C-alpha cells in the first residue's frame, strides 16, 4: 500500500465500538436503549502523523478520541498502542502508559481548575506520574513548557481567570505536553476561539508537532482547520468512518456522498463564489435507532434500495483512499478549496 508518510503505526484501532446503555432501570429492563456512539471503526495512525477526524455533532468523534485513550472502555474491538493491546487493560495496567498519551480539550474555560496556579496546573501530572521529581526540577520544566507554548514563565504564579481564551488553550497544551507524550488527541482545540486566535493555536500545535515529533489525532468539525493540519483525514457519520484518505485526495477527489455534501455545505470566505449547494434533507438521525445498511442513506441524494440492505465496508478505492459506499459510479464534486 502506498502511503503519505512512511512509518509504522503508533496506534491501530480495529473494529472499535463504543455503545452506551441507557435507561437500565428496574422498570425498563428488557427494552434498554443502546446508543451506538461508535460502531466498528478501524484506522491506524503512523508515527509522526496527524490524522484528522471530521464529522457533524454527535457523529462520535469525541467518543473515538476518548476510547482510543482508554478513558472509555471499548464495547468491542482492539486498540494497539506501540505494541500494547489497550482493550481489556485495567486501570492499574494502563497507568504506566498514561503519560505517553494525552488529551487536549475543546473548552479552555472549564478544563482548567480555577483555584490552581498555572504552574500547579501544568506540573500536576508530574506529581502523579513521577513523584520523585524535585521541586526545582518541576519548576524548571514548567518554565520550559510555558516558553514552548509562547507564554512568559512568569505566568506560572497566576490563575486561569487572568488569561484570555487563546492563552488558556496554550496552558492546556503545556499541561498535555509536560510528561513528554508521544501521542496526543486534540479534541476541537480551537473551536472555542476567535478566528485571529485560532490561527495562533493551530500554528503552535504544528510547530510543537514538528519540534517534538508528536503523533496526533486532531478532531474538529471545521474542514478547513482539519485540512490545514492533517496528513490524512477520516470522515465520520453516525458512529462510522465513511471515508478515509490523504488530505489532498480527499479534497480533490471525494468518494463518499457525505463527504461531498460536507464540502458543499461549507461556507467559503470568498463572495465571488456563490454557488449551488447540495442541500441535504433533515438532520443526522439518532444513534439509538441508526438506519439499516448505510447509515447515511436517509439523507443521501444518491441512495438506492440496496443501500438499506448491507453495511458497506470501508474499501480501498485508490492508494490509501477508502470509502464505505456501494456506489462506484458517482462523479462527486471536489471541495471548493480545490
Amino acid at each position, binding site marked *: 500500500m502506498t502511503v503519505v508518510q512512511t512509518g509504522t503505526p503508533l496506534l491501530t484501532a480495529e473494529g472499535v465500538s463504543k455503545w452506551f446503555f441507557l435507561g437500565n432501570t428496574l422498570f425498563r429492563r428488557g427494552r434498554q436503549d443502546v446508543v451506538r456512539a461508535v460502531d466498528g471503526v478501524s484506522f491506524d495512525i503512523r508515527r509522526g502523523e496527524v490524522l484528522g477526524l471530521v464529522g*457533524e*455533532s454527535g457523529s462520535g468523534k469525541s467518543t473515538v478520541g476518548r476510547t482510543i485513550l482508554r478513558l472509555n472502555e471499548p464495547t468491542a474491538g482492539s486498540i494497539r498502542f506501540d505494541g500494547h493491546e489497550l482493550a481489556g487493560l485495567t486501570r492499574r495496567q494502563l497507568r504506566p502508559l498514561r503519560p505517553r498519551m494525552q488529551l487536549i480539550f475543546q473548552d479552555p474555560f472549564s478544563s482548567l481548575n480555577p483555584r490552581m496556579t498555572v504552574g500547579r496546573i501544568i506540573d500536576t501530572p508530574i506529581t502523579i506520574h513521577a513523584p520523585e521529581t524535585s521541586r526545582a526540577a518541576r519548576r524548571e520544566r514548567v518554565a520550559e513548557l510555558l516558553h514552548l507554548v509562547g507564554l512568559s514563565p512568569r505566568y506560572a504564579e497566576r490563575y486561569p481567570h487572568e488569561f*484570555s*481564551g*487563546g*492563552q488558556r488553550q496554550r496552558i492546556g497544551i503545556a499541561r498535555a505536553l509536560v510528561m513528554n507524550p508521544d501521542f496526543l488527541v486534540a479534541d476541537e482545540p480551537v473551536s472555542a476561539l*476567535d*478566528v*485571529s*486566535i*485560532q*490561527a*495562533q493555536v*493551530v*500554528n503552535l500545535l*504544528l510547530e510543537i508537532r514538528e519540534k517534538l515529533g508528536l503523533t496526533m489525532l486532531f478532531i474538529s*468539525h*471545521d*474542514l*478547513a*482547520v482539519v*485540512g*490545514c*493540519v492533517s496528513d490524512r483525514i477520516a470522515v465520520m457519520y453516525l458512529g462510522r468512518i465513511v471515508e478515509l484518505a490523504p*488530505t*489532498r485526495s480527499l*479534497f*480533490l477527489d471525494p468518494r463518499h456522498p457525505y463527504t461531498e*455534501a*460536507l464540502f*458543499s*455545505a*461549507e*461556507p*467559503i*470566505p*470568498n*463572495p*465571488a*463564489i*456563490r454557488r449551488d*449547494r447540495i*442541500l*441535504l434533507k*433533515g*438532520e*443526522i438521525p439518532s444513534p439509538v435507532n441508526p438506519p439499516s445498511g448505510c447509515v447515511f442513506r436517509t*439523507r443521501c441524494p444518491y441512495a438506492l434500495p440496496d443501500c438499506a440492505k448491507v453495511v458497506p465496508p470501508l474499501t480501498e478505492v485508490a492508494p490509501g483512499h477508502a470509502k464505505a459506499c456501494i456506489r462506484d459510479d458517482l462523479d462527486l464534486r471536489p*471541495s471548493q*478549496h*480545490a
Partner: protein
Amino acid sequence: MAGSAQPAAIGETVLKVADLCVTFRTPAGPIEVPRGVSFTVRRGETLALVGESGSGKSVTSLAVMRLTPKPPRCHVRGQVLLRDDAGGTRDLLSLSDEQMRRVRGNDISMIFQEPMTSLNPVHTVGAQIAEAIHFHRNVGPRAARERALALLELVGISEPRKRLDSYPHHLSGGMRQRVMIAMALACDPKVLIADEPTTALDVTVQAQILALLKELQQRTGMGIIFITHNLGVVAEIADRVMVMYAGRIVEQADVGPLFARPMMPYTAGLLRSVPRVDLAGAGRPVLETIGGNVPDPLRMPPGCAFHPRCRHHRPGRCDTAVPALEDAGGDHLLRCARWREIAEAAS
C-alpha cells in the same frame, strides 16, 4: 465585479442607527461598548456584523431591540430610527416600554444563537407562535393557529400540523432554529436581527437555514442584520459588511470590495488568518496570525484600539487620537490613521 449574482431588490432605508453608545456600570468600572456606532439597513439588504468576541455585536443588537438591562445598570444613547408603514420614522430609543412591546416582534424581530433561551419549554410550539400573532394582530385564536401552521410550512418543517403540538425539547437543534425563525417572521417584520443563528448548528443544517433566510428575504423584502464570526458565512449571505473592534466600527463596505481589498489592518489580518487548505504546497501552510489578544473592555487602549496588535502601528500617530471613520471611496468606510500610506505601499 466580485460578488453577488443576487437579483438585487435593495431598496430604501428601513433602519438607521446613529451614534449608538451603551455604557454598563460594573463593580470594576464602566464598560462602554458600543462606542458611537452608526449604520443603515435597507429593504432587502443583509448587513453582516463581524468582529471578535466582546467587540459589541450582541450589545449593539440588543440596544436596537431595547433589550439591554435597565438604568442605572446600563445606559443607551444615540438614535435608532425605524421606518413605519406611513413612511415616517420613529426613534425606538424614545418610545415607552409599552410602545416598544408593540414594535418588537412586529416591525423588528430578533433570533438568538441558542433557541432554547427564547422558546418557552412548557408551551407547545404552535401556542407560542399563535400567541405572538395574537398579541400583535387583532385575530382570533383559530386564525392565529392557521397562520402558525402556514409559518411552520414556510420555514420548511416537515409534518407541520403535528409539530404545532410539539414541545420545544422534542425538536432537534435545526428544527428549533426554524421555529424561532417562524416566530420572528410571524408579523412580517421590516427588519430581522439574527445573532449567530447558525453557530450552534452543523454545517449541513447551517446551509439549510442560510438558504431559508435568503429565500424568505426575497419573498418579504425584510432587511437583515446578521451577526456572525464566521467569514465564510459572511461571504455567503451579506450584501454589506460592518467590522467591529473594541466597540467601534473599524471598516464597513460592500461584501465584494471588503473581501477583495480590506483596508483596515484588523480586517486584513482577520481575512488572512482564516485557515485555507493549501493543496498545492508540499509543506504545511503556516497560518498568518494577528498577535496579541483582544483588549480588556475595562482598559481600552488609547487612540486606535487595535494599535497594540497592529503591525503598521506608529507611536505618536496611532496611540493618541481615535482615528476618524473615513470614506475611502465608493462607500468603503474605515478607521485607521495610516490607511493612505498603507494602501499606497500595497499598490
